[in-house]
């Protein structure tokens, strides 16, 4: 008769007592000894190692206590400066094409087939326009930013960043590998949350999951880049505009790191108490990136996949926005009611009602925040202007700026706070679902979802109050 599981475990325990507790160590040692012997037989040295010295030199600079962080910030500055300076022209060209020529052509077609006004509005001013905005706002910066980021990744720079951050995470009571999960989060927070599986301790893994949202994801970089360009960069003389805009984006990213560390430190001293565990981090050799393959895969895979997701989300969002802007209850559209309802809170936070509604509409995907804001601003302002029916064309960034300031009443404070709120708000619904799947805990999913919003509200309230005190800003 076969032994029951309990009997087997009992036998195992009895035998273990007989052969000694150090079996694991003995087995490990046997493997190491064997591996060493085999490797020694198979490997021989032939002449001088090239490249190793250069690697060591780079590591001394890039992971140095003094130069590590400045090098990191410099690297980010270069990446964003190239992105912002490079995206301007193609962005304007795309907007000209999609919101100008194609938009006009579509209206022309609708005119000739005598489409009813609501169908025309729903399809062209709703679905099409939202999609077109997403494409022209997001495509150029993504097509520049992603290849640059992938090149850094291919070179082997990311583990160096993790190495630099390790000290800080340790001090915050978190796992050093959290830095790697952050790197994943810079692409997509849902992927970042899944990547926390490399962390063994449940306590440190939860901290990494909760704070992953402070890594700015693909869907949020374009928002930051655009708002940084038109509100922050534009305050500087033209020669410096791109540089200042890049600085503002880097500043928000660094702020995200600060929040990651602060929240980790607070969690590891309160709800998730414990010591940081140690681990070894491998610094791979610097590898020359494969330029063409990197360009190809980062443009085709990352850029087009993110864009596809954005477009898929933007089309129904555009439809919803058009509907709520054109269905009237009493004297105002549903969008109007919502915006006016949330406006007092929004203004208190240095934002406005439109932005808050946009963040509600954009819960499925952060990618559509800016297009939603633009459409709502135009629609609400238009209904306020008694249906003038004038469709503003947004052919370049400065016209976006004009719409937001003149119709939306935005100030520098609104721009700054939108950037802050973009960093600090609830994760998108995909990420929330992923957190649920990885934790199966309503409590931690709720905390991970609400904590960033609460922080965002607090931070925006503080900056708005400070700005109001220094009246000159508003």
């Amino acid at each position, binding site marked *: 008769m076969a032994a029951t599981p309990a009997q087997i475990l009992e036998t195992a325990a009895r035998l*273990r007592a007989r052969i000694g507790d150090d079996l694991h160590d003995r087995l490990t040692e046997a493997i190491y000894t064997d591996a*060493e012997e085999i490797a020694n037989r198979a490997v021989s040295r032939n002449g001088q*190692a*090239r490249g190793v010295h250069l690697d060591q030199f780079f590591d001394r600079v890039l992971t140095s206590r003094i130069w590590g962080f400045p090098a990191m910030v410099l690297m980010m500055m270069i990446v964003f400066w190239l992105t912002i300076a490079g995206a301007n022209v193609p962005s304007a060209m795309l907007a000209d094409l999609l919101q100008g020529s194609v938009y006009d052509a579509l209206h022309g077609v609708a005119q000739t087939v005598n489409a009813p006004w609501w169908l025309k509005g729903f399809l062209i001013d709703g679905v099409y326009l939202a999609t077109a905005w997403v494409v022209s706002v997001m495509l150029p910066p993504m097509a520049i930013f992603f290849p640059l980021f992938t090149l850094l990744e*291919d070179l082997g720079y*990311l583990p160096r960043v993790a190495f630099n951050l390790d000290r800080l995470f340790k001090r915050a009571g978190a796992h050093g590998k959290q830095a790697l999960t952050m790197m994943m989060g810079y692409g997509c927070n849902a992927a970042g949350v899944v990547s926390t599986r490399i962390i063994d301790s449940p306590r440190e893994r939860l901290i990494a999951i909760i704070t992953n949202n402070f890594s700015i994801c693909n869907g949020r970089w374009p928002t930051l880049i655009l708002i940084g360009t038109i509100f922050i960069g534009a305050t500087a003389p033209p020669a410096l505009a791109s540089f200042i805009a890049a600085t503002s984006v880097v500043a928000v990213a660094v702020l995200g790191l600060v929040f990651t560390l602060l929240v980790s430190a607070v969690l590891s001293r309160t709800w998730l108490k414990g010591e940081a565990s140690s681990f070894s981090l491998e610094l791979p050799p610097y590898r020359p990136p494969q330029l063409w393959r990197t360009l190809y895969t980062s443009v085709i895979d990352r850029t087009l996949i993110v864009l596809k997701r954005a477009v898929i989300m933007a089309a129904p969002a555009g439809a919803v926005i058009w509907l709520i802007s054109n269905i009237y209850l009493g004297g105002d559209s549903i969008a109007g009611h919502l915006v006016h309802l949330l406006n007092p809170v929004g203004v208190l936070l240095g934002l406005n009602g439109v932005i808050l509604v946009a963040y509600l509409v954009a819960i499925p995907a952060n990618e559509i925040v800016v297009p939603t804001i633009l459409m709502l601003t135009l629609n609400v302002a238009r209904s306020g202007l008694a249906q003038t029916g004038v469709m503003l064309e947004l052919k370049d960034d400065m016209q976006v700026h004009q719409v937001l300031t003149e119709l939306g009443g935005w100030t520098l404070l609104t721009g700054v706070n939108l950037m802050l709120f973009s960093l600090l708000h609830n994760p998108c619904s995909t990420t929330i679902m992923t957190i649920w799947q990885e934790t199966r805990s309503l409590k931690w999913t709720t905390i991970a979802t609400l904590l960033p919003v609460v922080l965002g509200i607090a931070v925006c309230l503080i900056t708005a109050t400070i700005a109001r005190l220094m009246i000159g800003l508003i």
Partner: protein
Amino acid sequence: MSAQAEAVAAKHCGACSSCNTSELARLGIKVGGWDYMVALAGNPNTGKSTIFNALTGLRQHVGNWSGKTVRRAEGAFNYNSKKFKLVDLPGTYSLLSTSVDEEVARDFVLFARPDVTVVVTDATQLERNLCLAMQVLEITDRAVIALNLVDEARRNGLVIDERALSRDLGVPVVPMAARRGEGISDLLRVIENVAAGAYPTRPRRIKYADAALESAVESLAAQLVAAFNNLPNARWVALRLLEGDASIVRAVRDGTLGAFKQPDGVVNLVQLEAR
């Protein structure tokens, strides 16, 4: 790359003598109805995902750092009119299952019983990489060592005698530079041979010159085989039980040993609350 350029590249790639992969048809994610299942194991950042992409035509995230792949990815390819399912496992330094990614890798090699397990090793760090390779050889008979990054090893002044390595390990060793597509066709040929049993493997097993241990393993293994009729490698499981491996003890207790389950990766909150 335009479709036309891609077609030209594919044509030249197939014709070139250094990269004769013309019998290879990449099938992407169409994994149904396979003849052989192949697993890719290895230390982090040794090029598993690069090899996976080269064989399946898929585009798993590749990057020069450890810890990108934490879920297993599946793809498929046809080679010499046989269909292969390929599974990319998370990179790990060992199979001792201290974290979710290690557990995913180990459970797959042990319980899903791939026809071939390809251990991707970094030629520049051979000794450390062999530790994992030897743990895999403890579990499965049908393994292939993909000795990757030989170009980098060469640049670092290292010469590796792959024949000696193959003799010592008892399984085929294929030198590769996967990033440049070198060695892919050799790897395919070897995978096919091992899968079909045309290349008999005699993997090196660690010898324990210890009679007490040997008899303990034997008696425990016999009990395990009797209790779990579906167990692939009872000796290996017996050793883990003697070590007191928590996850194997758990699997024995709840009777799931040998039944391959997809690990869900859920944070172990019970452990957290119990602290």
